[in-house]
């Protein structure tokens, strides 16, 4: 199976764009401008990378949503990780977090000053590192949405099974549906449709978007990250809007099931429980995150080390919060491309590889 090439057929792209233009014209005829929020940062990046924004008709607007785990994590979380590192813990993290500014410095700066900070590709490497440094506390920076959260119970299971005592998680897991709810009910925002994330949906299932559809709702279309997937999803959204419908459409059914991954859900239920969570931009949203259940608190870095993650100091002048909500385009931030570039990033939306500001900076002409 020539997997990638099959999804990047340039001729098919051209044809789908032609279909999109036809639908956009129909909507335009009835005076409609359409805002589609791509919830997920990987969509933001793919859209930018394949130049999709600038081939869409002008009455179709793609706005970027809160789906970059790095961007929605507040500065205080980085501060907490840095404090643990300075106290001698080995910090284990995905590459994504390493350059995010905390209140005073980033993990990369902290590492340059001698702290032990290990970048890994998989959370299972945290187990290996815990074995490798038996005399040290190993803290895994457990951030992410449902997709990245799902593996964590398995990691705890292994740690339990092997009697590993020096590993803990600094959790800042986030859930997508509560964020969508907050965005939908925000009177200042007018979102006509959600382009729903691919791999979060693999875990939670396409049915999870049902509450956002129907009479009061908007079309919710689940799509993969290949350019043709995204174009087809936009085509599907416009089709629904033309017909005045608002239902869940699964354009990624090669992976996403209506009910999601039940085994992953069961494992998460066993180890984790919903908690209130703070999002940069969206603020404190009730039950919008996941934390470890009380019976596993020995793996909870905050409890184990007696710390609490505070709010932290957000970079001044940065509009990230507005950008994450889709209220501001990165280009309307006065610092964009002036004081703030990927080389000298002010806010996380410029640091993160899938942050909206980085996507706009790198990929728009």
């Amino acid at each position: 199976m020539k997997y990638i090439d099959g999804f990047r057929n340039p001729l098919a792209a051209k044809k789908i764009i032609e279909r999109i233009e036809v639908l956009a014209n129909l909507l335009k005829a009835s005076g409609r401008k359409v805002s589609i929020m791509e919830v997920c940062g990987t969509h933001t990046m793919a859209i930018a990378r394949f130049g999709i924004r600038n081939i869409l008709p002008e009455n179709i607007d793609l706005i970027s949503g809160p789906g970059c785990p790095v961007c929605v994590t507040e500065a205080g979380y980085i501060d907490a990780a840095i404090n643990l590192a300075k106290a001698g813990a080995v910090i284990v993290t995905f590459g994504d977090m390493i350059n995010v500014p905390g209140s005073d410095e980033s993990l990369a700066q902290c590492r340059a000053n001698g702290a032990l900070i290990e970048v890994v590709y998989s959370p299972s490497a945290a187990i290996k590192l815990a074995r490798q440094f038996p005399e040290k506390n190993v803290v895994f920076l457990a951030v992410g949405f449902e997709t990245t959260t799902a593996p964590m119970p398995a990691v705890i299971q292994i740690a339990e099974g092997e009697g590993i005592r020096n590993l803990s998680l600094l959790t800042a897991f986030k859930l997508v549906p509560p964020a969508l709810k907050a965005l939908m009910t925000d009177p200042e925002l007018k979102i006509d449709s959600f382009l729903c994330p691919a791999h979060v949906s693999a875990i939670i299932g396409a049915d999870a978007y049902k509450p956002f559809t129907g009479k009061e709702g908007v079309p919710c279309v689940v799509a993969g990250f290949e350019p043709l997937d995204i174009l087809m999803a936009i085509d599907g959204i416009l089709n629904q809007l033309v017909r005045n419908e608002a239902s869940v459409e699964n354009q990624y059914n090669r992976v996403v099931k209506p009910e999601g991954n039940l085994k992953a859900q069961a494992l998460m239920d066993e180890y984790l429980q919903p908690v209130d969570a703070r999002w940069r931009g969206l603020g404190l949203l009730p039950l919008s995150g996941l934390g470890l259940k009380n019976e596993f608190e020995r793996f909870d870095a905050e409890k184990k080390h007696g710390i609490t993650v505070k709010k932290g100091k957000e970079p001044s002048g940065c509009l990230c919060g507005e950008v994450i909500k889709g209220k501001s385009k990165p280009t309307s931030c006065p610092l964009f491309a002036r004081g703030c570039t990927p080389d000298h990033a002010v806010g996380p939306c410029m640091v993160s590889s899938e942050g909206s500001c980085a996507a706009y900076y790198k990929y728009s002409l």
Partner: protein
Amino acid sequence: MCLAVPMKLIEIRGDGTGVAEMDGAQSEVNLTLLEKPAKGDYVIIHAGFAIERLDEKEANARIALFQEIADNETP
């Protein structure tokens, strides 16, 4: 938000892990999140974990659909 790629399971070990492959890139993967993984399954890998199966039939149907769109003269 979650970079993940399809790979084919080429080895399954007793301890809940296995090896997945795509175009010559091999990755050690954890299979805990899958119900009865089998050798030859296509799976979606995120951060070293198989998070879901890729339905080969649906994937091929999709590729065929794109081919059909491409071949279709009138849009």
